[in-house]
């Protein structure tokens, strides 16, 4: 009996923080993020209703059908019409959620990056990030594992003998111009890592032996954190970098400055 109010109180308590949004997503910085949040809210409404109804129903039957010592329980083995009804209703509900989410998934994974997307290579390794830009010639230079030298600032193993690598820019944090499509080509050198930017509502494992592309566009200038989100070893919790979204002019200036430093 006491269980009913306990269940209700816990239900209200859990639900409260979903309404209050005390700990919540940061605002999205792209179209995809807006669509993501809409799908999340749709699901939250459906799930919230199911959750609250089910918990309250549980509390209700506990109170209403407690043993009062009078007579016997109702004798029934069930009701096939009800079974069919709730089976088809839940199936319909769950499947329509997946269908509604398909467009969001497709936007990230089925659609190709636009042809003018800026390609950036991402290299993840225990426990740091590196990003490589093709530079003014638009070509990524040749790289070779044997030339890798982290302490000399050459995590990719850029081959100096290749003219195309002369103007490649390597950075420890990600810089992107605002409002332009970006294509990340992600590689890992050692174990699995994961690229995650909350504000982009996007996440992707980086798996050694596979080059994995993702593309996005960031519409809001600012600095956003990138915490590694796949267990990669003892420094996992420290494997952090940032993504800075810059105005187009600032981005060009940054590239100039990086080239000048080379």
């Amino acid at each position, binding site marked *: 009996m006491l269980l009913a109010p306990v269940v209700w109180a816990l239900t209200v308590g859990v639900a409260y923080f979903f309404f209050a949004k005390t700990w919540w997503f940061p605002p999205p910085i792209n179209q995809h993020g807006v669509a*993501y949040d809409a799908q999340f809210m749709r699901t939250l409404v459906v799930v919230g209703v199911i959750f609250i109804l089910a918990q309250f129903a549980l509390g209700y039957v506990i109170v209403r059908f407690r043993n009062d010592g009078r007579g016997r329980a109702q004798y029934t083995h069930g009701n096939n019409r009800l079974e069919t009804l709730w089976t088809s209703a839940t199936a319909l509900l769950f499947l329509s959620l997946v269908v509604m989410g398909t467009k969001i998934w497709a936007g990230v994974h089925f659609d190709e990056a636009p042809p003018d997307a800026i390609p950036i290579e991402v290299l993840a390794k225990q426990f740091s990030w590196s990003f490589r830009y093709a530079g003014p010639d638009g070509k990524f230079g040749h790289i070779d594992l044997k030339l890798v030298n982290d302490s000399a600032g050459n995590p990719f193993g850029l081959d100096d003998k290749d003219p195309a690598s002369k103007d490649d820019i390597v950075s420890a944090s990600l810089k992107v111009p605002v409002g332009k499509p970006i294509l990340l080509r992600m590689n890992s050198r050692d174990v699995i890592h994961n690229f995650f930017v909350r504000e982009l509502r996007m996440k992707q494992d980086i798996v050694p032996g596979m080059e994995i592309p993702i593309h996005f566009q960031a519409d809001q200038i600012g600095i956003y954190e990138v915490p590694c989100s796949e267990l990669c070893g003892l420094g996992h*919790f420290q494997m952090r970098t940032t993504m800075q979204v810059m105005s187009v002019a600032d981005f060009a200036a940054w590239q100039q400055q990086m080239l000048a430093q080379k």
Partner: protein
Amino acid sequence: MSSPVVHAHHAPEGFIRRYVFSLDHKVIGIQYYFLGLFSVFIGMFLSLLMRYHMVNPTVSVAWMAKLWPTAAAGGVMTPELYLSLMTMHGTIMVFFVLTTVPQSGFGNYMLPIQIGAEDMAFPVLNMMSFWTTFLALVVMIAAFFVEGGAPLSGWTAYPPLSAAGRVTGPGEGMGQNLWILSIAIFCGASLMGAINFISTTVDLRCKGMTLMRMPLTCWTWLVTAILGLLGFAVLLAAGVLLLLDRLAGSSFFLPAGMMISDRILADHKGGSPLLWQHLFWFFGHPEVYIAILPGMGVTSQLLSTFSRKPIFGYKAMVYAILSIGFLGFLVWGHHMFMSGMNPYSAMAFATLTMCIGVPSAIKTFNWLGTLWGGKIHFTTAMLFALGFVSLFVTGGVSGIFLGQPALDLYFHDTYFVVGHFHMIMGVAAIFGMFAGTFYWFPKMYGRMMNETLGKIHFYLTFIGVYCIFTPMHYLGIAGNPRRYSAFTDVEYLGGLIPVHQFMTYAAYFTAAVQLIFVVNLFWSLMKGPKAPVNPWNATTLEWTVPSPPPFDNFAGVHPVVNHGPYEYSVPGAASDFIMQTDPPSAVPSEH
């Protein structure tokens, strides 16, 4: 089928044959139970250390340095120690608690009695499967004591982290080898157990015990055994391959072009880290049902018994169990949405995942239907079964977020996932075990447990687990990655530390109140009031035999079953329950 000759077996003489290398399914069930109990306390202890460290990453604790002179030198846990505690916590909980107690513990003890058999089909195999499990546990714990300590790759052991050897981190040397070896041994033990459960259920049912008259517990043990047979076989193969990559220089999971801390791994090429994930989760998803199905069975049994009502939709429940078993093998990809596998396959896995949500929802509806119109008796066992329903709902609904690849784009590998699986497979399954303990303790030990202590323990635990695990969902929404040993290096995590603090206090509290259970358990074992044959006025066969039952369960008599398992409150019947073995005439003729 049982032989027509009536012959009473005699218990073997001598302590060793009776209690250590016993062939009696009841003794083996109890052995499994206590192995699980020992493991759950280790697992819980490890989780408390983790929870402490997360909110006090730099505070020095003197006794930590004594326990781990190198990994916690100066009394401060290193990140690698945190990760190895995490790995061992997850592994011990999943394999040695959730897989052993509900199935091998209660199942072993109760399945033969509930279907009217004298023992399991293969008693020697049964004994071997327990002792093999025991060996696996010893090997697992040994991983703590070797050079480098326990592995840090998590209970999922993803390569290359788990495959490339000592270079990827401390614990990835001998510790990881022992971990894989232990899991392989455990797979062997589980395969033996699965064969035994399936054969027993198929062959040893007594006269009149048709499949559709089996208690739902027996259905869940049967389907769990089938899942184990198919799942552990695959995990065993995967484990052997991983061990070969580590020790024999093969490249099943290691691709070309790898370089670990300045060293090029030239002698590996052609492997795929994703292959492991497919194999692992082909086992891993069924594994979560291995953990939860028996709890569902116990819950169904108890809701019916203590609301004095037949189970609502018995057939629908059986079909739901069978479809969970079947679909359980088709959804492994939902753990891999972000892994880099073909994104089109995500759509198929998502659709199938939502399909498997349906039978789970059906079960919840039927549980509420069972309670509806009942006369509910609030025993401690019943409270845990009702708690199971609440936790199952709470843990289940978060799966509707995670099952959508679109939403998993954010939630994958955050605390949202940790909250989800702790609720549904951790705590719900544990509540199933508590429910089973309070319900069957009188049968197993011939004594009653203390109801007052039981209820206090129930309420405090129920509130405690909600406080530990539901805030994890908010953390996930705020983007807190899992498997982080401290929240010091990512700025936005700083703001979430108060939530972690709250969960840590809740964990201390919940762990402390488990002492009430321990006291109740051991006090009742020795001092509890004597239990009658059928203290709950229940209907299934275990309540027809003495508490505790004699060596061969039915003292040489072959029971005959005339009724379904949940005939409560039959109108016009003499009492409000008709036992399965009551004569057909127990049901008044107009029914």
